[in-house]
């Protein structure tokens, strides 16, 4: 309900200003600026919407906070498959998913367009293999999209798209970027930031573990001790 309200306000607010100044050819917003992870979290939907001229094509990307990843390749050593060669990829998006307004709109927005800077230590052919393996493994963990999400045009200037965050979503600041194209030329681009954070009990536990690691370790130990003692007295008659 709230997002519908927001939508309406947005249209009312934006419609006149869009015609007044042509610069804001695309406007983007996200239904929830914050995705909260609580004890029962099992993935979440990110709903984005905005306005753009109906004749324009739209692409939207959602990128997770940058991380450094290492890709390792196994080699048969003494009959065992061991990690042998590795390559580090710095500051790559920990999550990547994209939406396009029509499936036949060929524009560089998919995984091919991702700029994954790697080390220079391996040959470019090998580099390609490592990069493919990185994307493939991230896709297997549902962190990288395999297909584009549709950008829906419900009518007028409106557009809307839904992204799925998996249960193992990275935590931190996500970047949404929407681009409008008219006859394959970019005519507008806008960005929004969205946060994924742990809240409630799970958030408190994580903060506790990071800020006071010794006290955290100690409380884990105390819980185990009490459970051990409790279980001893509970089953004393059986032992």
């Amino acid at each position, binding site marked *: 309900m709230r997002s519908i309200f927001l939508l309406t306000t947005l249209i009312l607010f934006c419609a006149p200003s869009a015609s007044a100044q042509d610069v804001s050819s695309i406007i983007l917003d996200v239904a929830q600026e914050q995705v909260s992870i609580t004890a029962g979290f099992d993935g979440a939907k990110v709903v984005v919407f905005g306005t753009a001229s109906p004749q324009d094509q739209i692409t939207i990307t959602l990128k997770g906070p940058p991380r450094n990843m290492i890709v390792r390749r196994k080699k048969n050593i003494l009959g065992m498959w061991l990690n042998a060669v590795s390559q580090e990829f710095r500051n790559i998006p920990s999550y990547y998913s994209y939406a396009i307004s029509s499936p036949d709109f060929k524009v560089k927005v998919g995984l091919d367009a991702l700029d994954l800077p790697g080390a220079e230590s391996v040959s470019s052919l090998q580099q390609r293999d490592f990069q493919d393996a990185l994307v493939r493994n991230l896709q297997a963990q549902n962190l990288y999209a395999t297909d584009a999400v549709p950008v829906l045009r419900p009518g007028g200037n409106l557009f809307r798209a839904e992204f799925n965050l998996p249960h193992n979503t990275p935590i931190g600041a996500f970047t949404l970027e929407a681009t409008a194209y008219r006859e394959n030329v970019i005519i507008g681009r806008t960005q929004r930031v969205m946060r994924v954070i742990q809240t409630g009990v799970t958030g408190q536990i994580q903060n506790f573990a990071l800020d006071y690691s010794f006290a955290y370790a100690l409380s884990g130990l105390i819980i185990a001790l009490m*459970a051990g003692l409790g279980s001893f007295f509970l089953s004393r008659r*059986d032992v």
Partner: protein
Amino acid sequence: MQIYLPIAEMSVPLELILGLGTVVGFLSAVFGIGGGFLATPFLIFLGIPPSIAVATQANQLVSASLTSSLGHWRRGNVDIKLGASMFLGSAAGSLIGVLLFGFLKHIGQIDTVINLLYVGVLGSIGVMMFLESLRTLRHSPTADARPLPKWWLEFINKLPAQRVFPKSKLQISLFVPLSIGFLGGLMVSLMGIGGGFFLVPAMIYLLGMSTLLAVGTSLFQIFLTTALTTLLHATATSSVDLVLAVLLILGGIVGVKLGLRASPYIRGAKARLVLSVMLILVCLHLAQKLFLMPPDLYMIQER
């Protein structure tokens, strides 16, 4: 129902984790084996990072081994002095194991090393238990009080720092329990298992202790070692997931209770035969991952 693990940063099915804890508790109550060697690979299989699986499993072992060692202590089966001496060794083993864990993770070999250790350990307990239960089923008398080999007695009598352990009626160099404990400590910190399957035979065959005292004392030693290891892992790398630990502990309490009720109805040797076949199957499964060509030669790791 899914539950979110705040340290592992992913969600797992709640029933599955409670069930796993129950199975582990049941096994430890019926067979006296902690079941950590089933739990840790299973947690890793669910996608929980190895460091979190091992450290959290050590935390559950604290609770399980406390319960069992209290039971043995009440019946006078714990040699506190010997257990404490072994703990001196296992504390060093645990500390080195935690450091080694970090190093192996850094060079990208931790999964292989954990896998290899599990294949060796599960394979050897599985085969040993299989042969032992077959022998018992054939009614051949098991040689319980086997005399220690002469060369071994001569060797350990020459070692310095001879100490008397009145409870176990032993006089032995402090270095023997220290080394046994050291290996036990490595197992806890690298594999998330108590190592009772190794400690008990070592105490019987290398120290010449009685089976009951060996079991009780090893549990006491495991309790001290797992408590230290979980503290080290949690402080050094914040890798104990409290939500996961509490679920495993709760399941474990139920499992122990069920196991204690069920144990009179479970015929020892036959049940051990079944368990040993299970262990060998898990071992073969892990070995296949190590020795057969993997479907994807590449793996990714966050730095």
